[in-house]
């Protein structure tokens, strides 16, 4: 899932303090699961902003709402009146949702309430960790299912570098060395010899560095409108 963390209140306040009618809009999917931007957090943030406004002597109304997913057009319908009645919408969705909302919100600004962090998983309650970088060219079959792109701080393909110590990365004792894990895991799988080969430089063009990406599923995309007269001829 997409993991995010809420921005500091001061930063949010700086974004919205000039606006009189604020809508805090939560997204009840990934960011709700990581306790950063669901309906519950929207309600909490709205309350905090109301108090912040009051303490700053600014007359501001702050309302809150949430929808299932801010990355689907249809889900916005029930809140669009609220959106249009606002001076600014503070979206607690991931960056995807904020972009999407900006497209829909016309002349109403859409601001981010959270920092979208990474694709990750719950390690245990309250701890989320990054496991995939969305590079568009998966090589997990070569690395024991452990991703060096996302989990090695240098994203190297022929690790581990000389900075590893006691299985930890040089950047912090709290970070596991991904390559240490890869070697240990492949030992266990009996496939260590796969690591003897030199991995060639990675093709990064499938990732962020290749420009904005798009996936098109032709079997699902709406076909061109059929010619008139043929519409109801399908057997029922």
């Amino acid at each position, binding site marked *: 899932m997409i993991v995010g963390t809420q921005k500091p209140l001061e930063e949010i306040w700086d974004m919205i303090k000039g606006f009189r009618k604020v809508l805090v809009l939560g997204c*009840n999917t990934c960011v*709700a699961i990581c*306790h950063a931007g669901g309906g*519950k957090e929207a309600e909490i943030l709205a309350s905090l902003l109301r108090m912040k406004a009051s303490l700053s002597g600014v007359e501001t109304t702050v309302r809150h709402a949430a929808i299932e997913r801010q990355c689907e057009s249809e889900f916005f319908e029930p809140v669009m009146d609220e959106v249009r009645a606002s001076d600014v919408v503070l979206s607690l969705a991931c960056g995807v949702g904020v972009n999407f909302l900006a497209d829909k919100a016309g002349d109403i600004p859409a601001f981010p309430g959270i920092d979208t962090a990474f694709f990750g998983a*719950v390690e*245990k*309650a309250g701890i989320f960790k990054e496991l995939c970088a969305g590079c568009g060219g998966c090589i997990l079959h070569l690395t024991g299912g452990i991703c060096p792109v996302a989990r090695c701080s240098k994203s190297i393909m022929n690790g581990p570098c000389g900075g590893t110590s006691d299985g930890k990365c040089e950047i912090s004792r709290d970070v596991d060395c991904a390559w240490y894990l890869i070697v240990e895991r492949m030992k266990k799988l009996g496939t260590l010899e796969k690591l003897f080969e030199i991995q060639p430089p990675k093709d990064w063009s499938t990732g962020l560095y290749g420009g904005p990406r798009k996936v098109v599923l032709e079997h699902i995309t709406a076909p061109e409108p059929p010619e008139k007269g043929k519409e109801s001829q399908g057997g029922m």
Partner: protein
Amino acid sequence: MNKVPSKKKGSVLVVGGGIGGMQAALDLADSGFRVHMVQRDPSIGGTMVMLDKTFPTGDCSMCMISPKMVEVGRHLNIDIHSPAEVVSVEGGPGDFSVRVRVAPRYVDPDKCTGCGDCEAKCPKKVSSEFEQGLGVRKAIYSLFPQAVPNTRAIDRKNCLYFMKGRCRICEKTCKAGAINFQDEGKELELNVGAIILCPGLDRYDARARGEFGLGRWKNVVTSVQFERILSASGPYKGEVKRPSDGKHPKKVAWIQCVGSRDPHNANPWCSSVCCMYATKQAIIAREHDSEIEQTIFYMEMRAFGKDFDKYVERAKNDYGVRYQRAMISVIREDPATGDLLLRYAAEDGKLVDETFGMVVLSVGLEPHRDAVEFAGTFGIETNSYRFAKTSSIEPVRTTRDGIFVTGTYQGPKDIPETVMQGSAVAGEVMALLGEARGTETITKEFPPERDLTGEEPRTGVFVCHCGINIASTVQVEKVVEAVKDLPGVVYATDTLYACSQDSQEMLKKIVREKNLNRVVVASCTPRTHELLFQETIRDAGMNKYLFDLADIREQCSWCHMGQKEAATKKAIRIVGMAIAKANLLEPLKSDAVGVTPVALVVGGGVAGMTAALSLADQGFRVSLVEKEKELGGLLRNLRHTLEGDDVREFLKGKIDEVRAHERIKVYNDAEVAKTGGFVGNFETTLTTGDVIKHGAVILATGGMEYQPDEYLYNDSDRVITQRELEGRIASGKSPGTGECYVMIQCVGSREEPNQYCSRICCQDAIKNAIALKERNPDAQVLILYRDIRTYGLREDYYRRARDLGVLFVRYEIDNKPLVESLDNRLRIRTWDYMLNRELTMDADWLVLSTGLRPHPTTGKTGEMFKAARNPDGYFLEAHVKLRPVDFPGEGIFVAGLAHAPKNLDETISQALAAAGRAGTVLSRKSLTVSGIVAKHNRDLCMSCLSCVRVCPFDSPYIDEEGRVAHNEIKCHGCGICAGICPAKAFQVNSFRDDQILAMIDAAMAEGKK
């Protein structure tokens, strides 16, 4: 099965109302028996209520025991007779007649509301027994604020009226008219099927040891006095102060073994608890006062219990407690300062003088002073120390059939073991009286519930004066006036005592007359009175959850005395909050689920077999699962107990009994493969393919003996374990003529990574040492130890070993003995701390006292039943003090070595306890679920699993569709799920978000004028 009318009585007498007696009473009353509790003091509670905190978790003692006391006090099937004593006992198992003398209380419990006005007004001050003389009480009093029953009692010896014929102020004060100076007490004749003795303990009177100056030097206090000093509700409100001048002592000393382990001047036994309570007190003292320097003078650190060694390590490392191994010969006071000068012999033998601001005497435990007469009344034998006589294989049976014993009357012990024995005697009684279950219990009948669907709230408010308790501070009429027009309120009134019988009737009448559908009572705390009022409105045909209690006494009038205006304003807010909530309350159903009256016992060792037999005797079918071909477990390796009981004989008898029992089915070569379900309704599949449906499970997966690799064990045939030595002694191979045996203790125990005491090894070594010496006095036996931990009455054998000439030499962990092999002998070198030099011995045999480990299957089994384990791998009980055989998940219990290392008698006690606890589940036709549970809204739920991860009771789970679902049967209504749920998919009944928000609004609203 046709139920043959039983000749056995379905009621039980519990003599003593301490924590052990309470546990036995609750277990029995919860499983279909009627209980008479006879308590000598005017309140139940015993010793535990006097304690501040408990080791090793630091939990507040009163907070733990108080709800239990309330439960006992309110239980429909427990009658408390107090202050009372048993006069005579006739008859036998299944049918005893008992005469009980109830002493006069001079206060009529039927009329008394417990308001305490009389006590406040009583002019006579008396030194308080409860505060150990550090505080005062009145002549009419309750033992302590949370007393149960909370009916006051007049202390005739100190009452001015009884002494001088005038006063009677209490009588004039009592608006309920409960004072009765003519009370003569009464005598009761009870017919019971079994008797449980738990009279509790006395503490050694340290004034007998004049050299310590107790009673002479003001700043020398007993450990119980120090408990009261530490207690936030005690005489010093938790401030560590000296009795002489109220100053904070900088240095505090604890002196251990005062009155214990001293056959010449005091009691010969070890009191088992003092090392740990002194450690606890030293820790808490530092928590209360960071300047304090604590020193504990001790002979041997007996931290033998579960996680105790870790606790002592924490005391040393995190709390700066200094442990000084030394005997104090004398204490002298500096009259100018009140400081105390202690003289002791340091380890190098030099005499040292050290000054302390305060000294705590760790006084030992002993049987109640009337223990001998007491035993006579019940016709049971005592041992030479006046404890009830029992054996290691029947640890809770007295010498008279049908009479059982629990707690410190059986021998010195701590709280969890007392509680465990409380459940154990309950288990024994259930087995004895199984057929009479349910024959004498009473149930309450209620009228049908009125259907309230669609009605707007019609709330009635009853504001209590509580005599003058509330009314003297809160202007009750003003409160009524202020709330009567609040939304939803259709009726508001005041009442003198809301809890009195006539008020209850009035309340019911008004509910019907005014057609009320919500009731708010504003009086005292819901913790003691909510159930009472809920029952009353239920009696009036209302759902009991349509009630809220506003606490305007404990949380208002009593803490704002003399501030009428402010208190009244606050009371209005409090009542307003309750009304706001009441308006949003909804009737709740208490669901019930059936119970499969079958037990699964995992593990066929002595724990598993004992539990299985007890449950089968109670009348339940039992499936006993043993992974090996044979039953018996670890005990098969043992021949005799320290006390000399023949273990093989005992074990054979048990196995035969299990095999022959018609209600026990044994599955050998079988393990649990998977399990599911919840209390009352488990379904477990075995590796054999058998599927067992059961209502409760006992995990008795046992332990293992540690296989050493230390001290040349793998290199020399002359290095053996205690178990191997036991075999050699039994077969006559040991001792050979003039042989020398050296034993090393704590092999594989009490050091990282196994920082725990294996508890059995000291006795094992001493048992074998005695056997060697008895067979051949010429044999030399030398035991290298760290601390000899022959706790309780086992101390006798330590003394016997020394008398027989067994030598004991202490070693320290950072200077362990060194062993080298010499042809057919072994050379052992160790540092002798007494002589301050190295000792070298050549031995024929080196015997290693190897500790215990949890059985490797413990982890796997635990995971399946979601039973947590401690860092050492032993099962972690639900609460180390009060729920020693339960798991947080209901219907799952633990017994034996799987829980922690323990001796045979303790394993048997725990197994009986597990059976007793399981009996409380299996004996019910159905289990009622409280209405206060979390409700799960699947439409809102995102299955994020936050609830699944945080719930302490495993009630949210992933269902067959792979989504989060909620099992309300397991839910305790704590609401942690609701707190964490990002989708607000959980709401706790009666604590819903809308209700809480409404209460916040009401709390913050300006009160009406």
